[in-house]
């Protein structure tokens, strides 16, 4: 059994009236990007921090690749798990290179191997090694710091990455860039990512699966598409604003509602790529003289999208999710 499994996990803080996490059962598949979403105080961070044993569950068990994490040495467990937090927590007295090298050093890698790894990781997070290696955290912007934080978490090539609102303190433009970065990295490195956020947009953008939590309980564990089209209850529906068709469209690619090209040539109809989202198709279709949008793959027309086609999109359920985002 790979990935992370939660079995009847509960956490009761001493002196708290209600449990922070109550009877959670989840299977996080290996290589998937799972977002824990919910309002503050819903227990999402507590759930996350039980995976690297910063908190211990009051009852229940958590398994990493089939092993009960309590049976593993706690420092060894943590060195196998990448950990990224909102405040970054870079070591201010160490250079960027030293920060990234922390876990490899703890694991006793030799110096040449560490240096190679540091350079590789800096390039991976789009920071030029020559420029950044010897800088100190105080000399970096917030976005750059979190890139280093990400590189540091990936240093020893962990299978699992835990991210606790990593972009919560970062401005909107940089945040979008970092989200793209994380998605690109995850697609490439196939890490199992558990990502905490209270930002619905962020969750929809990043997640393969979303765990919606409230008051310590899991309300729904589903794909973004399912959550938008089939919310389990009113709370989930409201949280995700499921009635908002335009938002749904921004997550759905044109390919999913594409119809076969109807005979009459392509004319001067606007064109979109199969990977573009339906929101763009909609704004094109709302222009006065546009009847249809031609969908093309690698430059060749493969289908078309019409307003009627868009109307039927709500029924799609499973076909959701822009998987071929330009990453």
């Amino acid at each position, binding site marked *: 059994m790979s990935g992370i499994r939660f079995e009847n996990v509960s956490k009761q803080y001493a002196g708290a009236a209600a449990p922070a996490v109550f009877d959670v059962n989840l299977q996080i598949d290996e290589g998937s990007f799972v977002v824990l979403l919910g309002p503050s105080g819903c227990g999402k961070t507590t759930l996350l921090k039980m995976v690297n044993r910063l908190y211990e569950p009051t009852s229940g068990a958590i398994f990493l690749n089939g092993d009960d994490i309590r049976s593993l040495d706690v420092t*060894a467990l*943590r060195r196998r798990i990448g*950990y990224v*937090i909102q405040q*970054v*927590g870079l*070591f*201010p007295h160490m250079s960027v290179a030293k920060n990234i090298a922390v876990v490899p050093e*703890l694991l006793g890698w030799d110096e040449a191997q560490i240096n190679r790894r540091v350079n590789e990781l800096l390039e991976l997070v789009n920071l030029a090694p020559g420029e950044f290696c010897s800088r*100190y955290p105080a000399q970096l912007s917030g976005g750059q710091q979190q890139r280093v934080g990400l590189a540091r978490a990936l240093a020893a090539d962990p299978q699992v990455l835990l991210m606790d609102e990593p972009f919560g303190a970062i401005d909107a433009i940089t945040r979008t860039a970092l989200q793209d970065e994380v998605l690109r990295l995850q697609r490439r490195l196939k890490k199992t990512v558990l990502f905490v956020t209270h930002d619905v947009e962020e969750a929809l953008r990043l997640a393969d699966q979303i765990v919606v939590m409230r008051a310590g309980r899991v309300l729904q564990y589903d794909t973004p598409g399912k959550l938008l089209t089939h919310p389990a209850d009113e709370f989930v529906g409201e949280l995700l604003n499921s009635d908002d068709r335009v938002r749904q469209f921004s997550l759905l690619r044109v390919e999913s509602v594409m119809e076969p090209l109807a005979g009459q040539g392509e004319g001067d109809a606007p064109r979109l790529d199969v990977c573009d989202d339906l929101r763009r198709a909609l704004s094109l279709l709302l222009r006065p003289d546009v009847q249809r949008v031609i969908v093309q793959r690698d430059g060749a027309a493969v289908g078309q999208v019409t307003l009627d086609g868009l109307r039927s999109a709500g029924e799609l359920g499973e076909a959701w999710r822009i998987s071929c985002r330009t990453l």
Partner: protein
Amino acid sequence: MAYLLSYPLDVLRLLGVHVLLTLGALLIAALIALPLGWLLHQRRRLAAPVLGALGIIYTIPSIALIIFMIPLFGLNARSVLAALILYCQVILVRNTLAGLDGVSPAVLEAARGMGMSPAQIAFRVQFPLALPVILAGARIAAVTSVAIATIGAKFGAGGLGVLLFDGITQNRSDKIVLGSVLVGLLALALNRGLLFLERRLSSYRK
């Protein structure tokens, strides 16, 4: 000046003893204060009573404190050393604690989350980050020790105090002036040296 020129080696020896006494006290005090400060940081509840007790010791006048040490260590340099160590404790422990408190919780969480053991966190993260604050305490402790160590001469500990007390009993103002100037210069030099170290070690703050 005349005295210095006629007996340079004697003066140098007294200065050497004074430096030894001060730095020795500081070093031993640090060896006690650093672990003690760390312990108080881990066990918060102990902090108030321990700092309170050390504060009370600090208020005892230096001559009285040295006299208290005589039954334990005899009428010699060891009593003076012990008193100096006790004086340094308050300053060093308080600054160690403040330095450790100043380490951001996020940094500590990252360190734990990355799989550092408590000892690795202490030596690789907490103390390096607390060091500038600890050194600031060491500066104050050093300067205080230089001053109090002069009294040590009365108890057979030697040091620059010998010049002062001899000067008074022999009515030799040249000795008094020389002793005072050297004590002052020593304090300034130690302060400078430690300040330099402190700045060097916190250069990463931009």
